[in-house]
């Protein structure tokens, strides 16, 4: 799929990939590079229902093509529900129903022709608790490229694994023990392994649901440094309960309250001069 322009199928029917130097294909180069001028997502009147109960009340929002957008708000405000809209994770929740338009690069991700599994390869997700597969470090990262058929040879797979682990800032720590179990790593390393796994399938978007809440300050700092590096190439959405973290890592911040998008602005404006009283009360820790 990815190499359609350069690969050929020989007369005898054998698929013949044309590989660049080094016998590998840089999958990241094949993905759509972010255009900072354009919005990655455009949401119009997005509502999410759990049964009869409406959890999100018509969200209109555009998400930048690159950079980090933080979603903040008190528990139950709908921020995680909103995050899960972008890779259709709400599809997996019984009775959950999403209405409204969610366009990714202008295409409706809830369209009939969209395969949620393929969508999730483009829109990766990292959860609060690191969830490496009970497999080796190598296989954790290789899993996605294998099931999506992104590597045509072992050497290419090796290359993808190495590049993904390097990008996730984990390579130096694990390069000598790639066959060891991913679950044996520390919490911070596991979280970076999960990010490497997400990156391995060359996503365009990475969703993060409180990715640092189980990490110590050093592991958190490494994760934030990683987010800072990734933000140039990916559209990143992060849900966090840490105001300081939202302020540190994001360029745009959206404040949710009781299922409404209350305020969405440059992070600097939100944290120095929020316009809405509810935002101010929340971020300054006042009774709401």
């Amino acid at each position, binding site marked *: 799929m990815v190499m359609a322009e350069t690969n050929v199928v020989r007369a005898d029917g054998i698929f013949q990939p044309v590989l660049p130097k080094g016998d590998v294909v840089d999958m990241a180069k094949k993905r759509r590079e972010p255009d900072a001028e354009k919005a990655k997502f455009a949401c119009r009147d997005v509502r999410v229902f759990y049964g009869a109960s409406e959890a999100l009340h018509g969200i209109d929002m555009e998400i930048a093509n690159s950079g980090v957008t933080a979603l903040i708000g008190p528990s139950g405000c709908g921020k995680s529900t909103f995050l899960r809209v972008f890779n259709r994770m709400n599809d997996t929740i019984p009775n959950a129903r999403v209405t409204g338009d969610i366009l990714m690069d202008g295409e409706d991700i809830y369209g009939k022709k969209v395969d949620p599994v393929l969508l999730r390869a483009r829109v990766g997700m990292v959860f609060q608790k690191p969830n490496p597969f009970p497999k080796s470090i190598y296989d954790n990262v290789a899993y996605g490229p294998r099931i999506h058929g992104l590597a045509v040879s072992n050497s290419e797979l090796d290359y993808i694994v190495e590049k993904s682990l390097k990008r996730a800032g984990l390579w130096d720590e694990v390069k000598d023990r790639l066959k060891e179990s991913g679950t044996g790593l520390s919490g911070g390393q596991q979280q970076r392994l999960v990010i490497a796994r997400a990156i391995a399938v060359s996503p365009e978007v990475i969703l993060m649901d409180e990715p640092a809440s189980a990490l110590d300050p050093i592991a958190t700092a490494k994760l934030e440094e990683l987010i800072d590096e990734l933000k140039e190439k990916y559209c990143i959405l992060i849900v966090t309960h840490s*105001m300081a973290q939202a302020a540190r890592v994001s360029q745009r911040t959206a404040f949710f309250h009781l299922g409404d998008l209350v305020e969405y602005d440059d992070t600097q404006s939100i944290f*120095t001069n929020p316009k809405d009283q509810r935002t101010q009360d929340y971020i*300054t820790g006042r009774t*709401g």
Partner: protein
Amino acid sequence: MKEHIVTSYNDVMSDLSGELSRMGGLVRKQLIGALKALETRDADLARRIRKNDKQVDAINDDIEERVMNILALRQPVAVDLRETIAALKIARELERIGDLARNTAKRTKVILDDEPIDGMEEILKMGRVAVKIVEDVVAAYEQRDVEKAIAVWNADEEIDEYCNTVFTQLLSGMMVDNSNINACSQMTFVSKNLERVGDHATNIAESIHYVLTGEKIDERRPKSDKTSSTIVQI
């Protein structure tokens, strides 16, 4: 404004603004005292004013420490951040006003043996305007009154006008009788001190405006002091 959920956060913020009010009150008292010493030629009062400036400096140090602690321990954002940073800036401005009051008292001592000069009445009037501006700006801070802060910001012009008048009077006084030179030259510094008091009060008004609105006063600050280009024809 609503209270912080964490009571101790409320307490440190309210202690900070309380300390700043106390500093404002003390600086006002110092300025009134310095002008009184000048008016009544009271060497003893002038000495006390100079000595008391250490109290103003001590409160400034205390506020700096409180601000450091709030930044390190509370990581304030939004209005709390603006309050905290403004406290640091306002304390610095008040400390400078305190220095100007001290300097005025110091110069008072130098002219005690000289004859009274023309223009003193204008200097004292100018001093009363300066005191009023300091009182108003401290009240604007205490009452969180943005309109009052803007009024102070605009009132600085009046002091600048006085300064221009006084400066011309003092130069003329020196030319008419050179035995006035000591007192008149000291008084040019005093009038400049009072003009600077107005400038510092204006800066405080700008900080208050930023705390309360999150916006800077976008117009240019009024500047009517023309002493730097004043020439008296002989």
